[in-house]
């Protein structure tokens, strides 16, 4: 076993030597399962990391499980040190490195060294023929949540322009943007959605500037896909626009302007996965789920949502709960005029083709590059 000699691993090995000297053998009681969670930002950011940390908190409440967490771990070689130290020092056997950029090359670097440790990564990057089998991929169809956001937005907008503050043009983000607009177009096919990319997952001043730019353009419902939506929500509500949440429930930030939000529900997912391991089973390498499977949930509807909007929202949610719902369906073109789906063609929520989305649909004002 080789590891980089840094402060943490030095402490780890020193402590481990001390521990071996004290303990004659394995403890008599069953060892608890140690589960490590790694976050790219603060775990109370009203966003991506908070959603995962709420899942971790649910795991913490389970019997026979010890949870260790580290936040603000950059997507650099730092996350490799964190993973190694969780494994060697804390004895973690199940790791949840939650950020998108942890996968390549960091998890791929560490995982082959520890074939007995399970690495669970929250994005659609793993594939059976290329990557180690002790790495698993899980994700939820949260685009459906943005579609429902879009329905409430379509009813709330008077300018027929809605806005989206996006971090980077990766497939998950593009699906959310497209779903948000297509949801709004369920209400009125004239609605357009302006998207602004900030280029980074967390960049407070630029997110505020982007939100102001959207408001300046007349967008009166704004949502986002950045790690911490707090700044976007507060800035948009401050400009008098309605907001739709993302990742977690942001209604306390703008109680009057909050329509609804697409939230992760990692608590159920994580406790389920940990229970599988406790029962001696193996977690599937490829786990997906949507609203019906409890991977994703919607924030309670806000006071500004009209009765008509509520009715359409509930009806559509009931349809989605049946499973296999298609947001991307023909006839549909992208915003450069290329055909995405012909008449009669549909991509259901679990269609793997959606995980390599590289287009913005007609009606979205913006570009992926």
């Amino acid at each position, binding site marked *: 076993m080789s590891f980089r000699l840094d402060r943490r691993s030095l402490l780890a090995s020193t402590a481990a030597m001390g521990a071996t000297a004290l303990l004659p053998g394995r403890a008599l009681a069953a060892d608890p399962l140690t589960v490590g969670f790694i976050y790219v*930002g*603060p775990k*109370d*950011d*009203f966003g991506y990391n908070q959603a995962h940390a709420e899942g971790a908190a649910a795991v913490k409440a389970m019997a026979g499980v010890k949870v260790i967490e580290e936040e*603000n771990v950059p997507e650099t070689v730092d996350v490799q040190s964190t993973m190694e130290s969780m494994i060697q020092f804390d004895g973690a056997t199940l790791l949840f490195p939650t950020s998108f950029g942890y996968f390549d090359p960091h998890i791929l670097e560490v995982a082959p060294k520890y074939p007995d440790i399970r690495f669970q990564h929250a994005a659609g990057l793993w594939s059976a023929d290329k990557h180690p089998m002790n790495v698993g991929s899980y994700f939820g169809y949260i685009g459906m949540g943005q579609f429902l956001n879009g329905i409430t937005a379509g009813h709330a907008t*008077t*300018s027929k322009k809605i806005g989206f503050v996006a971090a980077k043009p990766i497939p998950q983000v593009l699906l959310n943007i497209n779903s948000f607009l297509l949801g709004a177009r369920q209400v009125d096919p004239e609605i357009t959605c*302006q*998207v*602004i*990319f*900030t*280029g980074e997952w*967390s*960049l*407070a*001043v*630029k*997110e*505020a*500037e*982007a939100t*102001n*730019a*959207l*408001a*300046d*353009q*007349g967008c*009166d419902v704004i949502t986002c896909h950045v790690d*911490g939506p*707090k*700044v976007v929500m*507060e*800035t948009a509500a*401050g*400009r*008098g*626009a309605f907001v739709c949440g993302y990742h977690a429930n942001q209604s*306390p*930030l703008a109680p009057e302007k909050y329509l609804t939000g697409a939230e992760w529900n990692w608590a159920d997912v994580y406790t389920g996965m940990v229970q599988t391991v406790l029962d001696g089973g193996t977690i599937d390498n490829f786990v997906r789920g949507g609203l019906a499977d409890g991977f994703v949930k919607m924030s309670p509807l806000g006071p500004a949502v009209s009765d008509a909007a509520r009715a359409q929202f509930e009806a559509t949610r009931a349809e989605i709960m049946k499973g296999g719902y298609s947001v991307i369906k023909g006839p549909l073109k992208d915003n450069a005029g290329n055909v995405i789906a012909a008449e009669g063609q549909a991509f259901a929520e679990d269609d793997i083709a959606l995980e390599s989305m590289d287009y913005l649909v007609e009606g979205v*004002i*913006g*570009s992926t*590059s």
Partner: protein
Amino acid sequence: MSGDLGLWAVPVAMLGGAIRVSTPFLFVSLGECLTERSGRINLGLEGTLTFGAMAGYALAFESGSAWVGVGAAAAAGAGFGAFHGWICRFKGVNDIAMGIALMLLGIGLAFFFGKPYIQPVAPDLPSIPFGFWSDVPQVQAALQVNVLFLVGVALAFGMAWMLRNTALGLRIRVVGDSTEAARAIGIAPDRVQLWATAAGGALAGVAGAYLSLYYPGSWNEGLSSGQGLMAVALVIFARWNPVLCLFAALLFGAAGALGPALQTVGFTSGYYLFFAAPYVLTLALLIFTSTPGNALDSAPGELSITK
């Protein structure tokens, strides 16, 4: 919320951006300008700004008053500055290395103490609607001017006047240009530098409070994206002149608003390039305004980078 400005949206957004985004740059660069005019460099202002943002937000939340937060941020910043000034008076202490150490310390302490304040919502600083004459909502929004911005503008002119026309200004300049000359006329350079560094730190603390209490208006660990570091560079760009610091900060703020504004009017490709606009602009201006030989002419003589 209606009214389509077309391409006019870009200059309006840049005006708004200049006012909104420039204030932290302005305060940090004024603080650094004052410190450097006394012959000392404080590279730790990024840490001071981050700590000021946290302290301001925390105290504003606990007390319910944003102005208490600004006061706390200034006091914390003055503390950091005075510490830097005190350490640097000892023989053999390198102020650049010390500044970097203080930057890391400030950021670390801010993250440590700031943990419980990421979630709560603190009161915001008030702003003055100078756009009341216009019925265009975009113009009204752009001209929502925060009080701190006006303070900063007044401070830039006040500091320029103070440095040029007052006995205090003369002392600071003498110490900055030659500590021997200062000693010869009976000024204690250490004391002047200590106060100038503390005052510079206080201004950087206020810059942080502007970030966390007004724009974007919440505390989190990714709040400062290097404003404190860029502002130190702006001082050199502004040739140690407070009024030029004001224009440099405005220019930087306006250029920062360019990226998002251009995306909304249809320049959707290559936005990474537009986001680099502030830096490209700074480089271009530096090249156009410099002539070989006089680049550091207006630099204080005692500055460790010019010695």
